[in-house]
């Protein structure tokens, strides 16, 4: 079933909406959750929460890209669950590694007040991503949006792991510079 048809099921409040969503995006969302939570059980719960969140948000929302819409829901839910688990001192996984990697984006603090405007920072991120060659951008987003392991990224894109790491390292340097230009310190 195509995305548009699935969205129509939500709008019609049809019980088939969840089943069709699960059939088309179950593995996709589970993969996102697992990369963050490293637990099959937690990932499954997270995906179920995603379907509930989707049911509650459509209508009024009518996403133009259902994959990205559901992926964002799953990502946010998984991140929240990860934070809760960390408070209980559980878990690890790709997210922990990604945080350590991105910590290197810290730039020298300037004298300007730190800027924490979400819209501004997201626009900086978008411009940064637009400036990357397509392959590098895909690698970067796979790592820091999807939290895919480096080995998986390398395999999917036909690259060596060292090549992927180099692409990520260059990307992080450019991101740090882009944030610094906007007066954002990490």
């Amino acid at each position, binding site marked *: 079933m195509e995305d*548009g048809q699935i969205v129509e099921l939500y709008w019609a409040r049809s019980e088939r909406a969840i089943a069709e969503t699960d059939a088309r995006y179950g593995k*996709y969302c589970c*993969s996102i959750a697992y990369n963050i939570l490293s637990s099959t059980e937690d990932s499954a719960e997270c995906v179920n929460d995603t379907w509930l969140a989707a049911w509650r948000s459509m209508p*009024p*929302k*009518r996403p*133009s*890209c259902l*994959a*990205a*819409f559901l*992926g*964002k829901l799953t*990502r*946010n839910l998984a*991140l929240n669950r990860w*934070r809760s688990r960390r408070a209980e001192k559980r878990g690890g996984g790709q*997210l922990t590694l*990604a*945080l350590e990697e*991105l*910590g290197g*984006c810290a730039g020298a603090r300037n004298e300007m007040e*730190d*800027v*924490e*405007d*979400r*819209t*501004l*920072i*997201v*626009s900086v*991120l*978008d*411009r940064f*991503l*637009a*400036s990357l*060659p*397509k*392959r590098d*951008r*895909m*690698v*970067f*987003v*796979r790592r*820091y*949006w*999807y939290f*895919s392991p480096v080995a*998986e990224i390398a395999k*999917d*894109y036909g690259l060596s792991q060292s090549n992927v790491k180099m692409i990520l390292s260059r990307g992080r340097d450019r991101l740090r510079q882009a*944030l610094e230009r906007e007066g*954002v*310190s*990490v």
Partner: protein
Amino acid sequence: MTVEKLIDYFGDIDERYIKEAAPGERPAKKRWRALAAVAALAAVVTACIPALWGAAGGGPAAADGPGDAPGYIRWHGRNYFNHGHAVYEMPEGLELLGEVDQVVEEGRLIPEDAGDLSANIDGYAYWFPGNDSLIVFRYKDWDSSYAAVELGRKEPILLMFRELDEEGPHQPGQPYYTLPDLMADSDMIVEGTVLQAEAADPDGTGEVVYTLQITQAFRRSGKMETVQVRVPADSGVFETSRDDNYLLFLRGEADGTFRPVSTSQGVYAIEGKFLHIPANDPLRICEMPILHTEDNDFWYGVNDVREEVVLSLM
């Protein structure tokens, strides 16, 4: 900003990049399929390879000019149409998108003005980074007469409106704007996302000024990247989500701000002055999520009146 916040903000990046990098999506490789009796052809941008300016001909017969270029190119799910606008000198700032591939799509309808595609689609597509309203296409074997051809994005816009649950649909005999009226009354028509909001007058005029990032311009935005829109604080405009795109029909004010052209039962925008948008306005066309569908199934309506609307990008 903490690293965790950065990870959080990264979650809100452009959905195109999320979709582009989805597991299972791979950088495309060039592929050719045998031609068959088909209803339509579409040219699709694929993997990047270096540009070869003025490469010698060889292989399929060389194309002569803009009319021989692909009728339309499909990129990121959007159609860019060839209206024969030749480019005689490649502009600066272009970035190579990739090599144009030929994909056979049987039974797919093409717009009337797309034209038939040449069997030879051996060229490259370029864009101005950040501006996805235009693609520049160049055949590998074009001579110096034409550098390239522009393909512009032209999509119908799907407009949705909120029906009143309690007050019922629009009542016959009540005045309301049709979309052409809104268009005629607008100084500017843009698509934008909310950057920030602030009270227009801290002492309480009851108005809020929203600053929007212009993502598409359909009329008269010139080189403006942002626009300030003034609305009553209790109007509920932009209340749905800061993340949604809004299609705005705007009238200019002397102070450089804009107000939405609006409609309501019995209330109009008069002489460019915005009056009021009641919270339950059945035609809050100034505040709508925008959909760009692939199947040209576009509509807006009041009481099932349906019109197709096509707004050409500037």
